């Protein structure tokens, strides 16, 4: 009896503990779909078809929409992150990596395959400037005042600083073989040098490499924990996560993570969700111990995002999987003026909304040809 009296408040406490059903969006760049996982059950709860290759994603400045770039299809996909429903699609030139400027006024997009960096007005997606740059512009980051955007040029061993207002380069500097990710961190730029084993610490004034932090071969990019207490660097060749002290940039821990770790997102409990490019999985990593478990997703998962949520996503009614007339109205986006010619705008128009996310197929319900060939 005494035990029961003891156990009841405990049970009540457990029941009262906040339930979590965060949605984890995984962009499968080698498969034509986005996987949406429930963070608690680890089950795929939605599968959103895309046309070609999705790589990176971000929230709009007002945090109401998730914007996903389908690079080869020349398309931006807008999603309601709370429901995983596609709200609209817009034509835009080859969106690979994309970020909003800190003041929310500009959207900058790198076009890895076309050697272009595009600066758009964030609200209207009107092209303001298009820069033809050296080989393979990859990731980008802003200065906190939003005056400059820094772009890694993967095939040219360089980092480029571009003045947003004037739409032209300020400096270009050699930083190492195949620079990939770049972030602004406490007055410095941290650049993942993928053709080497280190993060380059770069002076944002002139692009000079001040020092290097060894993290493992194939150093890709760095992500800051939301509480600011750690930096995490991914290395794709050594397949490793390196924990860095944000103050000193000293290495605190090294965790092996087989499969080619690439992008990281953090859930509300502080766990790391890491895409593993070469094994079609994402890893969930405990930040206290580095212990990881993995979950199967599509081929070559790249960008990842966690949307906090309490309730599990409701099942999708069958009708929602087919096009209906009740689709939300198409956003009006007008073509940008083509002036002057070298910076001519890509024609922007909005395409009709096609059905929202489809429910995740039950095991064995994948298309026959993929099932039979293991794709």
């Amino acid at each position, binding site marked *: 009896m005494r035990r029961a009296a003891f156990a009841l408040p405990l049970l009540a406490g457990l029941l009262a503990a906040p339930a979590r059903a965060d949605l984890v969006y995984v962009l499968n760049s080698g498969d034509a779909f986005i996987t949406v996982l429930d963070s608690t059950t680890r089950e795929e709860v939605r599968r959103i078809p895309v046309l070609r290759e999705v790589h990176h994603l971000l929230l709009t400045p007002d945090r109401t929409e998730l914007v996903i770039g389908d690079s080869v299809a020349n398309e931006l996909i807008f999603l309601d992150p709370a429901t995983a429903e596609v709200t609209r699609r817009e034509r835009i030139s080859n969106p690979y990596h994309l970020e909003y400027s800190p003041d929310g006024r500009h959207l900058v997009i790198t076009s890895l395959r076309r050697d272009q960096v595009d600066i758009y007005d964030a609200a209207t997606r009107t092209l303001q400037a298009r820069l033809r740059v050296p080989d393979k512009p990859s990731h980008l980051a802003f200065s906190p005042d939003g005056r400059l955007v820094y772009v890694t040029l993967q095939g040219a061993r360089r980092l480029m600083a571009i003045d947003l207002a004037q739409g032209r380069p300020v400096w270009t500097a050699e930083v190492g073989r195949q620079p990939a990710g770049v972030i602004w961190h406490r007055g410095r730029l941290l650049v993942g040098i993928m053709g080497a084993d280190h993060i380059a610490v770069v002076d944002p004034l002139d692009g000079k490499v001040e020092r290097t932090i060894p993290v493992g071969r194939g150093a890709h990019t760095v992500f800051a924990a939301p509480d600011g207490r750690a930096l995490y660097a991914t290395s794709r060749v050594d397949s490793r996560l390196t924990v860095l002290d944000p103050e000193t940039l000293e290495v605190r821990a090294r965790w092996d993570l087989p499969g080619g770790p690439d992008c990281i997102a953090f859930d509300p409990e502080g766990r790391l969700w890491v895409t593993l490019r070469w094994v079609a999985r994402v890893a969930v990593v405990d930040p206290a111990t580095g212990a990881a478990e993995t979950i199967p997703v599509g081929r070559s998962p790249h960008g990842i995002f966690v949307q906090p949520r309490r309730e599990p996503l409701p099942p999708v009614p069958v009708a929602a999987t087919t096009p209906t007339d009740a689709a939300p109205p198409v956003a009006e986006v007008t073509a940008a003026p083509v002036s002057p010619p070298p910076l001519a705008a*890509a024609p922007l128009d909005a395409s009709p909304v096609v059905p929202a996310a489809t429910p995740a197929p039950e095991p064995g319900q994948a298309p026959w040809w993929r099932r039979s060939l293991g794709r």
Partner: protein
Amino acid sequence: MLQDWYAAATGWLFEHVLQPALYALGLMDWAEDLYGWLDFALFGLFGIAVVYAVCRPLEAWRPVERRADRRAVRTDMVYTFLSRLGILPLLAFVLLASLQSRWEGWLTEAGIMPPTLEELFPPLREHALLALLVYVVVLDFGEYWRHRAQHGFRWWWALHAIHHSQRQMTFWTDDRNHVLDDVLAALWFGGLALLIGVPPGQFPLILLLLRLGESLSHANVRLSYGRIGERLLVSPRFHRLHHGLLSAGATGKNYAVLLPVWDWIFGTADFRRGQFPPTGVPGIEPAMESGGWLRQQWAGFRRLATTLAGRA
């Protein structure tokens, strides 16, 4: 389960063999492309296994002719392994991807963005299988015209004659092509695939489907698909007529690779059933017909040079 196994196996191969090599060569910016190529190579190997499992029993069951010259068949096997491991498609894809970036960069600067097939036909967006079939039809149409060009241009026929000079045609003969002819084919096919925007993940599968059909059509088997079937899919009988002695060069018939409908539409079809003529090119030099791989390649280069110089 199978999907997981495939991902784990390709992941291991990439992480432990290919990626370290790329890193050592300073080519890490090509990592994604090489990862994509793994599918080509593995699908190529898988394709050889499937083709063998299907065609070999058929050839044993009802051969058109007895295999008199096994050495000639072995040469065709060399061609198959060289071709299907995907080295040439990879090179073509990498080369075309670079060309495409320049081309598309120029187009977007001129204010033009080529639409995808799904934009032109929105229902394809939600029906991956239907989209796949449309891609196959479009690419097969492209292959029909490439084949017409191989026979129509004298310089191209100088190379393509290697393919036709085999007198012991079997399912291995499909890949018996001059390397230059292969390069042209890869550029043509890869270029068309990029132009219509085939999703990269589907490209190896489309290639696999086309190759399966092509190998079967070369098989040494007395097989016709019947009155209707002959008009739907290229059969061993339909294609053997194309390889017949009287069908060499510009006088050819039955150019289709997978779907005979193109021959039907463009007036080059020969649907005479029950016809299984001997194959080869009358008067062709022995090196082209029965030489080893290297001799045939050299003879092809020589013939091409002679043709271009206007002496043939």
